[in-house]
C-alpha cells in the first residue's frame, strides 16, 4: 500500500529556532483521496502543508512523492511543484495579471505550453469554477470568494496530481464560504486528490475520506470522518470537537 501513496511523510520535523512546530509527522495521501487536517490554531497545520510544497525546508524526516525524496539532490523541484498545487488562505493571485493570465502564466513558464493551448486550458478551469465571466478582471476587482475560485483554477490549470488547500475559506465572509466549498466538493467528487487544512467541520465530515487531527505538532488522532467525529478516542480530540460544536 505504502508505495502507492502520492505523498508520504516520514518522521517529518520542523523547528523555527528552538520552537519545535512539527514533531515526527507520519502520514500518506493516496490517489483519489480527500484528506482533511483539523486542529487548533498554532498546531502546525500550515507548516506541514508548506513543508510538503517546499515553501519551508523541513528540519528532519522525509517527504516522498511517488516514493521519491523531494529533498534529494537533483530532484526537479519546479516539476514537482507544478504537480502539487497549492491554494492559500490569502489567495496570492498575481496582482498585475487578469484572472485569465493568472491561470496561464504557470503553464507557459513552467510547463512550456504555448499561449493558445495555455489559454484554452485556463478557460476550461475558469469555467469549471464558475469564473468564466470574470476572466478579464484583475484580482482587486474580485470578491474574496471569486479570488479564491480563480486561485483554485490557477492551481488546476497546472493539472496537478494533488492539490493542497490551506484554510481556503478562512479569509472569506460567510456567504462566500459556500461558493468555494461547493467548488471543492465537486472536485472531490471528480476524484481529485486533495489535502485540505480546514476549520469547516461540516466539510471535513461530509467530504473527506480521511481526517487527521493535529495537536502540538503531532498527529493526535486520525481515521475516517465517522470514527473521528462520532467516536473520538483521544481526550484532546474530544475537547477540540466539543469546543467547535459549541460555537
Amino acid at each position: 500500500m505504502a508505495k502507492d501513496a502520492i505523498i508520504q511523510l516520514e518522521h517529518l520535523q520542523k523547528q523555527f529556532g528552538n520552537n519545535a512546530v512539527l514533531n515526527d509527522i507520519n502520514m500518506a495521501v493516496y490517489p483519489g483521496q480527500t484528506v482533511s487536517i483539523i486542529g487548533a490554531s498554532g498546531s502546525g497545520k500550515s507548516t506541514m502543508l508548506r513543508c510538503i510544497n517546499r515553501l519551508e525546508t523541513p528540519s528532519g524526516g522525509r517527504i516522498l512523492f511517488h516514493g521519491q525524496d523531494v529533498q534529494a539532490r537533483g530532484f526537479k523541484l519546479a516539476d514537482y511543484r507544478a504537480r502539487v498545487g497549492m491554494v492559500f488562505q490569502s489567495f496570492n493571485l498575481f496582482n498585475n495579471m487578469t484572472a485569465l493570465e493568472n491561470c496561464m502564466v504557470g503553464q507557459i513558464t513552467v510547463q512550456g505550453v504555448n499561449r493558445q493551448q495555455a489559454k484554452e486550458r485556463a478557460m476550461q478551469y475558469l469555467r469549471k469554477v464558475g469564473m468564466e465571466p470574470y476572466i478579464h478582471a484583475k484580482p482587486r476587482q474580485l470578491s474574496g470568494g471569486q479570488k479564491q475560485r480563480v486561485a483554485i483554477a490557477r492551481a488546476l490549470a497546472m493539472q496537478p496530481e494533488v492539490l493542497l488547500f490551506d484554510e481556503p475559506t478562512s479569509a472569506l465572509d460567510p456567504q462566500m464560504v459556500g461558493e468555494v466549498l461547493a467548488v471543492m466538493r465537486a472536485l472531490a467528487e471528480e476524484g481529485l486528490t486533495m489535502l485540505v487544512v480546514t476549520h469547516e467541520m461540516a466539510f471535513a465530515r461530509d467530504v473527506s475520506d480521511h481526517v487527521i487531527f493535529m495537536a502540538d505538532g503531532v498527529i493526535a488522532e486520525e481515521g475516517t470522518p465517522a470514527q473521528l467525529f462520532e467516536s473520538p478516542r483521544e481526550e484532546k480530540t474530544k475537547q477540540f470537537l466539543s469546543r467547535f460544536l459549541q460555537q
Partner: protein
Amino acid sequence: MAFLRDVYTILVEYYPQLLAGVKNTLLIALTGTVAGLLIGLLTGVVRTAPLSGNPMLRALHKILNAIIAVYVEIFRGTPMMVQAMVIYWGYAFATQGNTLALLPSGILIVSINTGAYMAEIVRGGIISIDRGQFEGAMSIGMSHTQTMLRVIIPQVLRNILPAVSNEFVINIKDTSVLNVIGVTELYYFAGIIKRQNFQTFQTYMVVCVLYFIMTFTITCLLRFVERKLEGKDTYTIFGSQSSSKAQIQIRNGEG
C-alpha cells in the same frame, strides 16, 4: 519695458545655444534616468535574491552585495559635482592626458549617480511586495527569475514610478553641475551668453524659466503615464453574467 526687451533679444540672438542646451540637458537627464533605473533594477534583483545553497555562488553573491552596498553609499554620500570632477579627471590622470568625450561623460556620471538612488528605490519596491506574490508563483513551480520577470518587477515598476519621475526631475536640474567639466548643457550655455551680453540677471531668468518648463512638462507627462498604468477601473464581463456554462452550480450559503 527694458527687461522684456532684453529677454526678447536673448531669445532671438541666442536661441541656437539655448536650444542646444535644452536638448543636451534633456538627453543627459533622460538617458541617465533610464540607465540609472536599469542599474537599480539589476542591483535590486541581485540584493533581494535568495542566497544559493552552493557555497561558491553564495560567497560570490555576498561579495556582490557588499560591492553594491559600498557603491550606493559612496555615490549617495558625495556631491555629483565632485563625482563629475573625480571621474572625468581621474580618467585623464589614469590614461596620462586622454580625456573622455564630454557628452558621454555627462551621461555616464548622471547614470552612475542615479543608479545609486535607484538601487535603494527598487530594493524598497521589491521588499514591499507581499510575500504571498512570491509564494503564489513558487507554488506553481515558477523559478525565482521567472517570478521576478513576470510577477514582481511589473508590480515594482508601477509602484516606484512616482519615485522614478522624481529622479528624472531632479536630474534635469542637477545636470547643471556638469558645467564644471564643460558639458554643453543649458547652464553651461547660460555662462557663455552672460559673458557676451553682460546681462546676468536677464540671462539666468530665461534659463530659469526654461528649466521650469522642462521639469513641469515632464511631471505632467509622467503623471499621465502613471494614471494610464493604474489600468482600467472596469473590465468586460466575458460571455453572459449568469455563467450558465459553468459546470459547477454555485449553491450559496452551503457549508
